[in-house]
């Protein structure tokens, strides 16, 4: 048989392992899976025959090869084995007496080559217990010249390939028809003794099984290395495979669904239930007796074998372990369902819930405790976990992994997370997780934190009152390092409830002190590490997760820019339903999937609500859609607006969907906000329209709404309130579409922004008109006329189109324009203020910024605000000069030259202003000349004229002095009215009569309460201003 060419094809078997210590019965479906995984052989050589144990990753290969030239000699090659081998050469009853049959050489750690001089009876290899948890033996045995490998107690379980006498191949087993082999198997699974007697014929020789059984019973006395097995006695795994090779047909696959047959096989010594053998027959006639496998151990093997490969999973999640858990759970569940006795099976999963009392809330009972149990938006889960992982550098002193960062750069959404600080923490130190209630935010935060290796400190912000208390608690948790426990991750639940307790303030304090510390750290730079370390007390070194329902609550406004905001969306219904179903099954509540789907949809994905509803209905043991309760949810108006513009896929027809929207609006009772939101957002929505018909109609509806609300709030027709929601329904019917997606915050802002802008503009208007002359105030009474009629022109007037090159070389026309501008600006109390820009240049800005009123587009505004530097500088200088001039002129005017004032009022034209300026300058000069020329008495007269406006004051304080003053004053005025503007020099002459004494008296009175010091607080240095050398010289 071995010489034949057909045998050259290898038989390859991949087996999963069965764990039979705990489980009395094997799951038939698992067994069938085992059959399916028997894989196609890979031809490794023409003249070899052997078996190869593979898994999908080709982790392990065992090849048994017979060299064709020298029959009876075997090469036994183990490639890529997960284990380091120790060789127990010639172990076994038979081989101990003979000379060594085989020599083994370890090629590498995981590869070994064995060659036997002649086909050995038994050659045993054993796994090294030091390096693996799964000691195993590989037994190489021959019987009647046929080679067989038995792998015993290996993680791959014992696989024995044995060639049987060819006579058995033809044996008809009388198996059930191929179609229902699976059913047959399931039916037969629990039983071992149904096999008819004649089938014993096909069994391997008795002693072979005996051996196997003995090995089990007597702790493998036939192997010298008892200790290897003793560790494993509880979970004894055996897989016995018998393959019978037919002469003619070596077609593979050996087994597939249709052509193979499997049935239980009763073995004489297996009645104690410890072993579970099955016999399978392929279409080609080959038969196998095999033990069911356990994927659990196989996976464990895989994990331990290639730890590096699997452990680098980027989220710090032990995926392999999770997978194992899932599978184990899966299997247990199936078993339980199969056996209909869930309580008796004590698995790890059940133990978790075994001692649950009846009174416990299901929500708590079935809360997800492990990463795999989470249902929900997986991307959010991952983002959350990734954010937590970014802390691990500073918390766990893990090396920073550059690889995940690189991958994330491409993703714009997660790109925000990439920025890290000197501690390689996430850019934003606080994570704000928000979403509707009941979706599992808290659960996710807890699980993720635990998954990332933290202990969770949960603080419920709505419970904790008092800022100082909270501060102590948080700071304590962050700063202290507890011995022997894991670091703490703080989860602040319902942070939106903690507004008044100063919770937010505490968080802000912590975050700002951290950012300050970080900045200091930056400044002191990396080389000064000692300095940096000193300041670490201020750093926030533990992750903080805040959870809230609505991130737009005003209390959170200050926190929002500092936090990484993560929106938690509802899990898709198909994800939730199986979980609910499982819970129902466990709680012996029988609900069909459709009802559950309905429940989930009606709850809008609120898992907690679903579970609560289930438990609530548990008493009646029935769940119908009618009994499903809706809970009272406070929905953000913005969410409703978003809903208005979206087509609801769940609602069948339009009418239904409109009704749903209306109902939603009515339930929220925020009509104004929703309608305003609709009104603001509909222009940016996509909708099919013809000739603006829809906006027109929308306008009608809005009018309707306004009328309604007017009569409700003004005239108390409260019964009309019932119709308030219908305009929203109309909006939904007109503007909803599938492609509309609404950013919630976009609506939240616009209204408020408009309000703010309006307020600031109104202030601006008030400022402009307030400083204008009374006449101007008269002509522009209300704000709108100022905006429409004054501001735009003013804008043009104060921004003349000049082309200044040099202050001294100015065209006459331009000079006039400048003067005019200056005049207008002074009248409106406008100024050009020099400011330093970010880029270091200086600009002149208008103050007040009338461009805000006059212009609309922001670009225009920006341009207008800055203007041309040279022009404005020119105007500004001119203005300063003019102001001085005016100030002095005002004195002159006050001194009595009212004619000048009248003249000035009259001259409003350009020339007039200019002329007047010149005139006044002239007056000023003359005045000074006169002053200088005349003696003290002259001065006295002048002074007396100066204080003319204060006459009333003088009168009041010193009425008896009225008389002496009067004549002089009158004469003075006389002189003024008769005098021309240049006749001021004569002024002295008139006042010369007034004696110095009188002037002194007058001064004395005026001084009373007239001279005083306004003290400036602080250092006088604080008011020093830089004076350049040129400034100094210019005025000289």
């Amino acid at each position, binding site marked *: 048989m071995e010489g034949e060419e057909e045998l050259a094809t290898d038989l390859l078997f991949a087996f999963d392992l069965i764990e039979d210590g705990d489980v009395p019965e094997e799951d038939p479906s698992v067994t069938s899976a085992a059959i399916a995984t028997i894989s196609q052989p890979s031809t490794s050589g023409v003249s070899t025959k052997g078996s190869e144990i593979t898994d999908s990753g080709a982790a392990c290969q065992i090849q048994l090869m017979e060299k064709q030239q020298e029959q009876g000699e075997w090469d036994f090659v183990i490639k890529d084995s997960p284990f380091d081998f120790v060789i127990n050469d010639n172990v076994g009853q038979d081989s101990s007496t003979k000379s060594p049959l085989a020599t083994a050489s370890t090629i590498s750690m995981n590869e070994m080559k064995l060659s036997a001089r002649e086909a050995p009876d038994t050659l045993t290899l054993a796994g090294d217990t030091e390096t693996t948890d799964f000691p195993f033996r590989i037994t190489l045995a021959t019987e009647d010249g046929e080679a067989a490998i038995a792998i015993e107690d290996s993680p791959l379980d014992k696989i024995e390939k044995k060639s049987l006498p060819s006579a058995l191949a033809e044996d008809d087993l009388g198996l059930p028809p191929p179609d229902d082999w699976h059913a047959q198997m399931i039916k037969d699974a629990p039983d071992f003794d149904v096999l008819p007697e004649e089938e014993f014929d096909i069994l391997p020789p008795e002693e072979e099984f005996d051996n196997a059984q003995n090995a089990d019973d007597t702790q493998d006395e036939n192997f010298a290395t008892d200790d290897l097995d003793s560790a494993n006695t509880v979970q004894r795994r055996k897989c016995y495979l018998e393959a019978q090779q037919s002469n003619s047909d070596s077609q593979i696959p050996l087994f597939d669904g249709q052509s193979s047959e499997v049935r239980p096989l009763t073995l004489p010594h297996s009645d104690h239930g410890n072993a579970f053998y099955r016999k399978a027959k392929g279409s080609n006639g080959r038969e196998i007796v095999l033990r069911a496998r356990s994927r659990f151990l196989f996976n464990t093997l895989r994990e331990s074998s290639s730890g590096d490969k699997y452990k680098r999973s980027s989220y710090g999640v032990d995926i392999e372990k999770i997978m194992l858990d899932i599978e184990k759970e899966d299997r247990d569940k199936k078993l339980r369902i199969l056996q209909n006795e869930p309580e008796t099976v004590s698995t790890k999963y059940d133990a978790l819930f075994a001692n649950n009392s009846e009174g416990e809330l299901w929500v708590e009972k079935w809360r997800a405790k492990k990463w795999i149990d989470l249902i929900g938006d997986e991307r959010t889960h991952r983002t959350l976990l990734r954010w937590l992982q970014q802390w691990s550098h500073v918390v766990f002193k893990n090396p920073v992994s550059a690889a995940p960062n690189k991958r994330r750069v491409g993703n714009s959404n997660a790109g925000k997370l990439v920025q890290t600080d000197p501690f390689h923490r996430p850019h934003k130190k606080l994570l704000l997780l928000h979403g509707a209630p009941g979706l599992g935010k808290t659960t996710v935060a807890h699980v993720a934190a635990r998954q990332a290796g933290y202990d969770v400190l949960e603080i419920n912000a709505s419970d904790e009152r008092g800022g100082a208390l909270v501060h102590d608690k948080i700071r304590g948790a962050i700063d202290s390092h507890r011995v022997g426990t894991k670091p703490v991750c703080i989860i602040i639940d319902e942070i939106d409830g903690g507004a008044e307790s100063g919770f937010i303030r505490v968080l802000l304090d912590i975050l700002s002190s951290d950012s300050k510390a970080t900045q200091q750290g930056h400044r002191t730079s990396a080389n000064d590490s000692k300095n940096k370390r000193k300041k670490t007390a201020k750093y926030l070194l533990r992750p903080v997760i805040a959870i809230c329902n609505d991130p737009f609550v005003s209390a959170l406004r200050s926190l929002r820019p500092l936090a990484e905001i993560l929106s938690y969306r509802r899990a898709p219904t198909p994800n939730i339903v199986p979980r609910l179903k499982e819970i129902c099954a466990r709680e012996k509540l029988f609900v069909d999937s459709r009802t559950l789907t309905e429940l989930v949809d009606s709850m809008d994905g609120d898992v907690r609500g679903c579970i609560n509803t289930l438990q609530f209905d548990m008493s009646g043991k029935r769940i119908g859609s009618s009994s499903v309760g809706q809970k009272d949810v406070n929905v953000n108006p913005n969410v409703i607006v978003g809903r208005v513009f979206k087509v609801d896929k769940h609602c069948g027809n339009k009418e239904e969907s409109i009704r749903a929207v209306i109902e939603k609006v009515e339930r929220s009772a925020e009509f104004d906000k929703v309608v305003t939101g609709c009104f603001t957002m509909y222009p940016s929505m996509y909708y099919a329209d013809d000739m603006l018909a829809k906006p027109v109609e929308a306008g009608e509806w809005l009018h309707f709404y306004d009328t309604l609300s007017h009569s409700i709030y003004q005239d108390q027709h409260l019964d009309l309130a019932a119709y308030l929601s219908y305009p929203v329904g109309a909006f939904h019917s007109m503007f909803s579409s599938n492609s509309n997606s609404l950013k919630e915050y976009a609506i939240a802002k616009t209204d408020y922004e408009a309000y703010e802008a309006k307020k600031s503009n109104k202030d601006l208007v008030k400022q402009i008109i307030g400083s204008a002359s009374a006449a101007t105030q008269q002509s522009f009474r209300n704000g709108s006329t100022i905006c429409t009629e004054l501001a735009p022109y003013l804008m043009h007037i104060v921004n003349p189109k000049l082309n200044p090159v040099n202050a001294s070389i100015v065209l006459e026309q331009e000079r006039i324009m400048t003067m005019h501008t200056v005049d207008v600006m002074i009248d409106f109390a406008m100024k050009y203020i020099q400011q330093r820009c970010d880029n270091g240049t200086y600009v002149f800005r208008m103050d007040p910024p009338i461009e805000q009123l006059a212009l609309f587009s922001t670009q225009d505004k920006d341009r207008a605000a800055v203007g041309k530097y040279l022009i404005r500088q020119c105007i500004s200088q001119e203005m300063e000069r003019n102001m001085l001039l005016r100030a002095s002129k005002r004195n002159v005017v006050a001194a009595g030259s009212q004619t000048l004032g009248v003249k000035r009022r009259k001259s409003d034209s350009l020339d007039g202003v200019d002329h007047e300026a010149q005139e006044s300058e002239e007056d000023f000069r003359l005045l000074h000349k006169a002053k200088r020329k005349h003696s003290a008495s002259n001065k006295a007269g002048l002074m007396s004229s100066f204080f003319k406006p204060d006459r009333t004051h003088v009168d009041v304080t010193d009425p008896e002095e009225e008389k002496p003053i009067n004549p002089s004053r009158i004469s003075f005025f006389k002189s003024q009215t008769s005098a021309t503007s240049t006749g001021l020099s004569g002024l002295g002459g008139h006042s010369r009569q007034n004696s110095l004494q009188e002037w002194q008296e007058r001064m004395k009175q005026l001084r009373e309460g007239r*001279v005083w010091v306004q003290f400036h607080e602080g250092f006088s240095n604080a008011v020093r201003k830089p004076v350049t050398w040129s400034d100094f010289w210019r005025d000289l």
Partner: protein
Amino acid sequence: MPSATFAFNVCPATDESSYFPRVLRTPTGLALIEIQGTLHTAQPSSDSTPSELGKLTLDGKTAWLWIGDHQRMEGSIVDLNPPFGVLRRVTRKQSEMEEENGSPDGTAVEIVEVIRKKILFTSRPEPIVNRKMT
């Protein structure tokens, strides 16, 4: 940067009629007073006409300044370091300028005074009730 010629009169005429004690006064008989605050008068500050502010009394190192009717400040005499120079621009005729090689733009400066001490009032003015000035 503009430049100018400096003239320094080494020995300016002293005015012995000054009220100030010798320590304080400058050669021309003036003294420097520093007030931390703004002095408000009924007249605009741009005007160069003198107006009486108040009374200054000196008592050793401390000084009292009475401003108006209702304020009194306490101050002290302090050294000015560096000293304060008072400059005056001297305008000359063109011909004169060409003779002395003055600066091109015709500016010439003369040091009038060097002030070495000042009376410094840093404290807040104390309110005084209804004090009649003599």
